[in-house]
């Protein structure tokens, strides 16, 4: 058993990357519209639930959790870690091209490093073979 991913499983990984990062960006955009909420006016937070960007962000983060749990049911935690980190890259790119924020050379370098990390993992097996489960494959890849 090679534990190579099927196209539908790659789609779940892409959804993990996109939903978390786009959800966070939606929340950030929404909270910018709602304004500053201090500890003496916590009631303003309830008003945030009327904002369409906040609602969209929450829906996307619920979607992220569902996709993440689905991915954990067939992939190792250490396989998924770089995939979730790729969300940082998407947030940085969204902040640059959608919110028009400045990205320093260090941030671009950080993006390159995370892309390299994801690239290392992408071609590897998604799940560790355990002797009890796959006797014929025991010791493979160790």
């Amino acid at each position: 058993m090679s534990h190579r991913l099927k196209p539908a499983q790659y789609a779940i990984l892409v959804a993990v990357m996109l939903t978390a990062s786009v959800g966070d960006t939606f929340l950030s955009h929404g909270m910018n519209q709602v304004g500053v909420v201090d500890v003496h006016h916590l009631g303003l937070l309830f008003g945030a639930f009327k904002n369409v960007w906040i609602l969209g962000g929450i829906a996307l983060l619920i979607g992220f959790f569902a996709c993440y749990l689905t991915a954990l049911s067939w992939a190792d935690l250490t396989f998924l870690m770089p995939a979730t980190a790729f969300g940082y890259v998407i947030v940085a790119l969204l902040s640059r091209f959608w919110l028009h924020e400045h990205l320093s050379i260090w941030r671009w370098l950080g993006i390159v490093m995370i892309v390299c990390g994801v690239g290392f993992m992408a071609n590897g097996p998604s799940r560790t073979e355990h002797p009890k489960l796959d006797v014929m494959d025991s010791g493979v890849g160790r």
Partner: protein
Amino acid sequence: MIASTLLTWSCILGVAALAVTGEVLTAAALRKIGDFDEIRAVSGMRGAILAVVSSPIFFLGSLAMMLNFFMMLYTLSVAEVSLVAPATASLTYIGNAFAAKIFLHENVDRRRWLAAGFVVVGVILLAH
């Protein structure tokens, strides 16, 4: 000054430890439950959701993640986000790699260590 630095780093370590605990317990629960596609084929979406929410390990993992969220809020009140975010993310990645190898018996080979290393450096650079 020393007391404040000690408090900041204790909080950062606490946040990372709770994140690692939550993620490892959740991963252990999902591994025990099995592939969602196979469960869905037998007992439908309702059966898959029931299998997850009735798992005590998943419940403990979720509890650790909830505590991590509140600990993170407290940490952000005592230290700057530019330190807290990359420090907790990096420590969580490294901690996850060690914990996955020790507790989940995952095959963390050279490729995975290298990927974790690149991600940690990348996260630190993104915080600049």
